[in-house]
Structure formats: C-alpha cells, structure tokens
C-alpha cells in the first residue's frame, strides 16, 4: 500500500503479431525494462500481422489511459492514427517496424544496411567479387516494408559480383511447411546454386533442412533471426550465416526511452533513429554490436533460452548505450541509409 507515492506509470507495448518467437524475445526484454524501471507494462497485439488491427489496439491502449506506448509500425496506414494519439498527448516510441512520418523516435536495425551486410557475408563465402553462378533470394512476404528494404540491400551487395546471377526474389511463404517446400523446389530447380538467401525468420531453418537432404550440398545458406531452429541449422553446418536484430535492445530501449522522457517531462514528439544494431552469427563467430563483450556460439544458444543470462549479458549496454539514448539519437534518414 503505497501512500502518497506518485502514481506508478503504465506503459502500453503493442506488437504487430503475437506468438512469434522473435517478437516474443522483444516482449521479454520490454518486461525486463519495466521491472528495472518499476513501471507497469501492458502487452497486446493482433493475432495476425495487419496494420489496421494493430492501430486499433494502439488506440485502445491510449483510450484505456496508459502513460506512453511503444509500438512497431509495419504499415503506413497507421501513421495518421499514431500522430493523432501523439498530438493528443500520449508519447509514442516505435520499434522494429518504422512508420515514415510518425512523430516519434524509432528503435530498430538499419534495414537496408543489414541487407547489404548479409549480401556481403554471403558473397565473401562464395568467392567474393569474382564469384560466378546463381544465388537464390527468397522473400516470404512480398510487400512487407522491412523485407523490401532488406531485399534492396542484399541485391545491392550481390550486384558487386558481375558473375552472380540472382534467381528470384521468389515468394517462399511464411508458413513453415510451405516455406520448406518452396526452398526445396528452388534448390531442385537450381541445383548448382552457390547460395540461398532468405529474408525472414523461417528461412535459415528451411534452407538448412533442404541442404541436409542433398548429400554433399555446397550451397551456402544465409538469412535472418536467431531462433532456436535457425541456430540449430548453423550449429549442424547446414546453414552458414544468420543476422540477429538484437531483440533485447528493440524491447528494452523503447520502454526506457518512454519512461525516461515521461519522468523527466521532456517531449519526444519528433522523429529520430536509435540503432539497435545487427548481430552477425556464423557457426564459428558471434559479433554483437556496440562493442559488447565477446560471445561464443554456445553462449548465444544458452542465452536464447534464458532471460536471466540475456539480461546479465546486456547489463553493460543498458548502463551505457541505453542510458545515453539521447546522445545516440540520429536523424531518421540513417535507418535506410
């Protein structure tokens, strides 16, 4: 029973889809931040990724009287609605999906840049600029903004090798069974492909399984996200590169920014970019952003299953990068630079 203590803050956290392991890591990080900062957090999101249902959820959050809202913005049609909420006085921070034109800071990876990075890593593995042959690119959800940006970056890097012929981008579907079948078909149609590059969470795992089924396959597999299945594919050598989006920062940082600005009574109704960095993971090395402590593949796997380990690992980053978020705030143009 707190007496005259100031009212405990409540933060709304709205994701674009629930029941997605990657998003779930973000949610866990947000909850850790809420605990650290002693605020209440309300998490919600639509069952399927669609902007309008999500915007409705954000509006409902605002109507229910939360003090600030963090939300991903996967759809341009959310922009006006979010700005209306901001105008009415509820601060918002965006994460993971950027709404161009929303008057709120954005926490996320540099989507085009991460695509470039992936393209470059793959290119290095298949022989650099002198590589000759097919590289298959798959997009699981054509039209999804982040994926389109990543695709742009991947293709940009791969174009540096004139001998590389891009197959695709093909529609490889989100559903894991259909995703697997699509990659299987792609490799069967292009058996001599040098590499397979996916842009979504299920791809690395599917590519690994497809590779495993072809004895002696030398095709390089690369993609996104550090899900358990993807890490397993890296561990058994059937896939080779996966980029992580530091879900910890994507969840922790928005809550921190909201609470910090509310408590210090400063407005954050302007756009800006807070880079959450890109993790580069191969079976032999893990490169974490922002000069974090070195990490082995085994440690990474252990971390992906434990909140405690995760929080402990990122403690230094919380005390520096997160705390100094104002200093790290960059113009939004950096996101897709």
């Amino acid at each position, binding site marked *: 029973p707190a007496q005259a203590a100031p009212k405990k803050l409540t933060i709304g956290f709205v994701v674009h889809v*629930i029941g997605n392991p990657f998003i779930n890591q973000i949610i866990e990080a947000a909850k850790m931040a809420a605990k650290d900062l002693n605020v209440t957090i309300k998490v*919600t999101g639509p069952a399927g990724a669609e902007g*309008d249902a999500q915007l409705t959820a954000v509006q409902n959050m605002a109507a229910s009287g939360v003090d600030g809202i963090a939300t991903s913005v996967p*759809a341009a049609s959310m*922009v006006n609605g979010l700005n209306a909420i901001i105008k009415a006085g509820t601060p918002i921070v965006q994460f993971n999906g950027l709404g161009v034109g929303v008057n709120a800071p954005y926490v996320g990876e540099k989507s085009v840049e991460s695509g470039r990075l992936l393209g470059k890593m793959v290119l290095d593995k298949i022989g650099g600029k002198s590589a000759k042959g097919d590289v298959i690119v798959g997009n699981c959800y054509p039209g999804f903004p982040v994926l389109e940006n990543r695709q742009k970056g991947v293709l940009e890097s791969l174009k540096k090798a004139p001998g590389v012929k891009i197959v695709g981008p093909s529609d490889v579907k989100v559903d894991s069974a259909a995703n697997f079948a699509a990659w299987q078909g792609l490799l069967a149609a292009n058996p001599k492909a040098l590499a397979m590059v996916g842009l979504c969470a299920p791809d690395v795992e599917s590519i690994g399984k497809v590779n495993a089924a072809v004895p002696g396959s030398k095709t390089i597999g690369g993609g996104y996200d550090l899900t358990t299945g993807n890490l397993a594919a890296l561990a058994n050598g059937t896939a080779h590169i996966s980029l992580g989006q530091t879900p910890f920062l994507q969840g922790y940082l928005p809550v921190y920014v909201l609470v910090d600005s509310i408590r210090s009574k400063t407005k954050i109704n302007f756009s800006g970019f807070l880079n959450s960095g890109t993790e580069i993971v191969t079976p032999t090395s893990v490169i974490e952003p922002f000069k974090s402590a070195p990490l082995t593949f085994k440690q990474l796997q252990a971390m992906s299953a434990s909140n405690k380990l995760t929080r402990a690992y990122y403690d230094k980053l919380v005390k520096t990068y997160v705390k100094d978020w104002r200093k790290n705030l960059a113009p939004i143009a950096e996101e897709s630079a």
Partner: protein
Amino acid sequence: MSKKTKSKRFKFPEETSVIFALILLVGIVGSMRPTFLKPENLLNLAASYSISALLAGCIVYLLSMGEIDLSFGWILNLSAVVAGLAMIAGIPVWISILLGIVAGGIMGAINGALAVVMRLPLIIVTLGTASIFQGISLISNKSGSVVPTDEKLRANIFFRALGGEIDTPIPFILIFVVFSFFVLHFTLHKTRFGYRVLAIGSNPEAARLAGIPTKRIKILACTLMGVVSGIGGVLFLGFRGAVDPSTGANLLLPVVAAAIIGGTPLSGGAGTVWGSLVGALIVGVIGVGIVFLGIDAVWSTLVTGLVIIFAIGVDQIVRVRKNRIS
C-alpha cells in the same frame, strides 16, 4: 379467433438475443473499467470497427444466398490502391474515389460472372480471385504502401471528415456506416432485389422455376459486395490516409464472424443486416475490452476464444428462451 390475437402479439425482433449478448459484454467490461463506458470511447470503438461492420452488413446478402466471398478483403485493398494511385497521379479526389468504388464493383462483378459462367460456388471462384486481386495490388503498388501525401489532396473535405479533422459529435464515418445499414437493411427486406436474393438462398431451383433471373441476381449481389468493399477501401484510405499491401488481409474471419454471430445462417434463405452490425460490435468489444482490462498478450487469445463461446452461448440461450415464450 385466437388466430388473430396471436399474430398481433408483440414479437421480439430476431436480433434481441445478440443485442442482449452485446449489452452483457459491454456491461461486464464497463463494470470492471468504468472509463470504458465513456460515450466518446464507445463511439471511437464503433468507428474503428465501422468498416468491417459495413462489410459484414453486405456479406449478409451473399450468406443469405447461400454463398461466401473470400476475396472482399482484397477487393477493398485494390480499390483503395486504385483510388490512392489515381490521387497521386493528380486525378481530382472525388473522381479518384469514384474510380476506386467502380474498381470494386468491377471486381465483384467478375467474381459473380465467373461463378455463373463456370457454374461453381462463389467460394471456389473467390479462392482464386482473392489471389488475383491481391496480386494485382502488389504489382501496382510495387509492393509498397500507397500514400497520397500531397497537401492539396489532404485538404479535401473527404479526408478531413474521415480523418476526424472536422469535429462532429459523432464520428463522420459512423454516421455514414449507420446510414448504409439502413440502406442495406431496406434493400434486403423491402425491395424486389432483396426478395430475390433470399428466394435464391431458400431454394435455388424453385427460384429459377418461379422466373427469378438467378444468374443476374447472383452477379448483382456479387457486384454489390464489390461496390461496398470498394467503398470500404476508400473509407479506409480516407480514414487512415494510406493503404498497405497487407490492408484487408485479415478481414475475412472477423467480418464473416460478425455476420454469423449476428444471426445469419450459412445455409442461405435468411439474413439479418442489423444483426451483423451487432455482431461486428461484439467482435469489437471483445478486442477493445481485452486491452482495457489489461489482459496480457499471452492470455488474450485464450480469453478472446472463451468470450466468443460465451457470447454465442448467451445468444443461443436467449434465442431458445425467447422462442419458448412466444
């Protein structure tokens, strides 16, 4: 003469049971979070769900004809894309709006014509056309969002009214949708077209032999669905100011759910337009209520399911009780 008295006895409208379920739900959420009951909150809730309510009101036509359209979410999307691209291309706003609605009507007519020519149920045809409309949308918006940003466009009264920039005590979109429901209800139950739709749904062969032009009516009903989806599309564009490639992707289930929770059977021959409005509101209250009560995302899906079962259970119990009384 007991016959006479009986027929004049007061009859509850058939929507009674589902209205009761709605009131019960609102009451439960409101008693736990009184702010929920604030008029502006309820109005905003209704406004947020007004587009899917409108679609539910129209899919009642198809359901009562014994058909289902799987493509209307993508008709909505493509219509909005057409209107948005037209605006970006500099075509006057009102004409762009019209173009979007006409595009919707054409898509609906294509659905109907294919079903009639191929002699197949609409559900099978729209399994294919849904992908076609989505595909055309993806190609024409180059896999990106369509955002008519030009300030001149946004100064248009259409966008201002829908975007909530013109202050009305009741959101403009809500007024529009309620008006549409009057029209949809009236058309289904008081015009020859509606009469024919219901006759086809009751017994298609009997309708054909009674001289009802079943093919034409089928195409017309599909076209109506297309036009209303097109209207939904431009409303969306105005309401949200942009259309995304995923817009409309998840409309199918909530819209059909609204109609059947509202009391329209899938078997054809009967339908309630007002019921579908109540059904859409029930779907809305469930969604909003969960956020208001602060139910965690992990639990919200389960709670949604339980509340749906609860709502249709209440509906069913009231329905049975009512039939027993009268």
